[in-house]
């Protein structure tokens, strides 16, 4: 199969890969670029574990073809915050115990960030909608909602 060169940024860093037209962004990130914080949960767009931002918008990396993102900017959880400078959402997830097994956490925080970027003061229903594409099997969502609400309330004050 023919391979295409594609250039894009991951967390601010330029990357160039050779991909077939059917290669998903999830495969490229994990298998070519070793961006392991983007998780493989279902490869069908159901679970949200592979959520990343492309130019600030939430997408499932498993439903995105790498050839579609030429010249764009991919942000993963590691682009959202770091050990030295965690994002307020990460601090809040930490404080509220919102991560259990942690497998959904990178995608969950990524979706939450996109939500707050768009709407800094969401109500509980808007928060629930904002993360509805991300399954969590451990927490029952209670502490995740607490964590996001707490940041939203800080934004308000």
């Amino acid at each position, binding site marked *: 199969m023919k391979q295409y060169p594609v250039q894009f940024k991951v967390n601010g860093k330029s990357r160039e890969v050779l991909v077939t037209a059917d290669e998903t962004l999830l495969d490229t990130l*994990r298998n070519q670029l*070793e961006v*392991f*914080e983007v*998780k*493989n*949960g*279902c*490869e*069908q767009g*159901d*679970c949200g*574990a592979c959520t990343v931002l492309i130019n600030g918008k939430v997408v499932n990396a498993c439903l995105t073809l790498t050839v579609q993102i030429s010249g764009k900017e991919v942000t*993963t*959880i*590691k682009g959202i*915050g*770091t*050990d030295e400078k*965690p994002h307020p959402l*990460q601090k809040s*997830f*930490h*404080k*509220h*115990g919102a*991560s*259990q*097994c*942690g*497998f*959904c*956490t*990178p995608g969950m*925080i990524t979706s939450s960030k996109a939500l707050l970027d768009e709407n800094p003061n969401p109500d509980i229903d808007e*928060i*629930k*909608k904002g*993360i*509805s*594409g*991300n*399954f*969590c*099997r*451990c*927490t*029952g*969502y*209670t*502490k*995740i*909602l*607490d964590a996001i609400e707490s940041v939203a309330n800080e934004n308000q004050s």
Partner: protein
Amino acid sequence: MYDQNQDSAIFSGNTEEKHSIIGKRLPRHDAWEKILGETKYAEDYKLSNMLHLKILRSEYPAAKLLSIDISLAEQLPGVEVVLTAKDVPKNETVTKFGQTHDVGGFAGFSRTLADKKVRFMGEAVAIVAAKDVKTAAKALKLIKVDYQPLEGVFDPEVALKEDAYKVGEEETNLVCNYKVRKGNIDEGFKQADVIVENTYRVPMVDHAYIEPESGVAWMGEDKVINIRAATQVIEHFRGIAEILEIPHNRVRVIAPMVGGGFGGKEDITVETFLALVVQKTGKPASLTYTREESILAHSKRHAYVMKYKTGATKDGKLVAMEAKLIQDSGGYIYLSPWVLLYSTVNATGPYDVTHVKVDTCSVLTNNTFGSANRGFGANQPCFAYESQLDELAKKLNMTPLEIRKKNFLHTGDALATGRVLEHAVETEATAEKALAALGKPTEPWAPHIKIGQGLAASMGSYGRNNFIHDTSRSYVGVELDGTVVIRCGVQDIGCGQCSSLAQIAAEVLGVSLNDVTVYYGDSALTPLAGTTTATRQLYMSGNATIKAAKVVRSNLAKIAGEQLNANSDDLVFKDHKITAPDGNSLSFDGVIKSCAGQGGELYAIEQFNAPAKDLINFKTGQGQVFSDFTFGTIAMEVAVDTETGKVDVLKIVSCFDVGQCINPLSAEGQMEGGAIYGLGYGMCEEVILEKGITLTHSLGEYILHSSMDVPKVQTIMIESGGGVGPFGAKGIGEPATVPAAPAFSNAVADAIGQRIFDLPVSPEKIVKAIHNI
């Protein structure tokens, strides 16, 4: 102590602050790694030049396997090896149950790769190892399997009949049966003023952890096969070695952080396939199941048919309970006899019933095999006995709480198995608190909306069957700078197994949580701690860790006592200091250095043994099976749209006696997540099979709750201090999910005035019930 965070509450008998780390709302010591995206799960570990595996799976649920032709697949460029049953050194294994205690005839026959006869759809037939996943997938299509489809049997009641299709070759379809007898059941029903008799059906459900089954394996230079996989049981190294026909000490299993287990990673998944390829090729190998493969091929929670006849006096006293439980084991036995044993002990629930007759059996069919799933056999009968109690209450014109309060077991009472509950039993308090927190019913906002409230109480064991003589080991050591190291072979599947151990050691040694490092889950390097199943790790490894930490503390206290001129028993270890009653103190690391200087032992490795006494007699059903139980109640309020059958869950309250809460963040997390996991069982989850063929093979078709479908869960913890875990803790992981499904179905029945006897209580069933369709 009354600890208030939002809506959650902890009620404790202890008013003084006994602990500095235990019971504190502390983020886990390893929380940041997960939140920053640093944690390396099973699939995040790559080895250079590793082979990629794909598994060929049976297209039929029941078929004769006539021949397999792998020649075309083998010739495909990039394919390294193709393995079938004949390539597996010991393809057929038989697991005897009971381990150290002879419990009777049942034994679990199992095959690594299908041979002779296919027993369920998705059974592994061949392994392909290739240079990449695409090539491996292509090779699968080149394998020609000649099947002769057979009729199969898919209904466990049909499979029990004498002339039924036989799932196996030698075995009967009946896997095992148990019974419990107390009093005289006929006499019991004579004493009853009201009797309700119903048949309940619960479906097969999936664990649906977000991380699919995955692992890598490689050959060590010492010829040890290393497997790093998402598993709840590193001690499968023994079983894997037996299949490979190599010594036990030539297989090492490492469990990294696991992305959810819930019992689905309790049986072997990818490990043996990987080990076989490494053994055959000497090359590293990797395998991750697709989601479809995960749903098709890993274990499920067993479907049951449960026939309950329950009698009560006009005062609401339960005088007779007759229960017949039929468990669908699916195509293989796996843990079915264990799960059924749990169901048998749990069949009467947390209630004192005068006359009891329980008969249970497990049956092979050509459905996906059943095995462990959070609750391990406690969930199915809880749906039945809690539905029966509400039906009795309705007939007697009593409230659900009133009838339960007349029948709850208390400390000192005996189960139907004769086992006396010598530890804390606070079920009644949990029911009262949960219902009180639910409050007055919400007013319906439209004529077609009906509001209902329901509750369900439950018991759930923590710790494994005591006839297996369960053990766990833990190493606790101190470093010269005053930091602490734990080495313990626990598998951390997301419940905070490691962080709980860190808290225990930090409490005993008087350091902060972040001063503790936990090395976990490595059968070569960490002392074996048994399975992360059966809600046993806090209980077993927690007790082993506290034992080891106390030995280290005592070694240090001896030296500190001499230096402080104080009795070593009177010293307080807190805030990196060791303080005498007169107020004089020494630094923790200073005493460690003194101890090291004298050649003292800075570490201890200790084993905790679960008590094993009055073991159950399987012929009479009398005796002990478990160390202790966790009791609790979940209450819910629902709004049912009578036109569409759609249900909105408005409130969920979960109240459990946790004995001693080790960490409120983690314990609440278990209760919140457990309630929603169980709500899914009650409301929407079902692996739908049609004649053994799975129809729900994606997370789009297998319906899980999203954030939009559920309310926040309000938790209330009682701290009786009466558990057998460290500091009086009880286990909460599995018990927290058990009563959620019946609480939901009881709330729906309260709303619509009719009961639905089959889970899940779906909108379709509700509409049919309302309109008598």
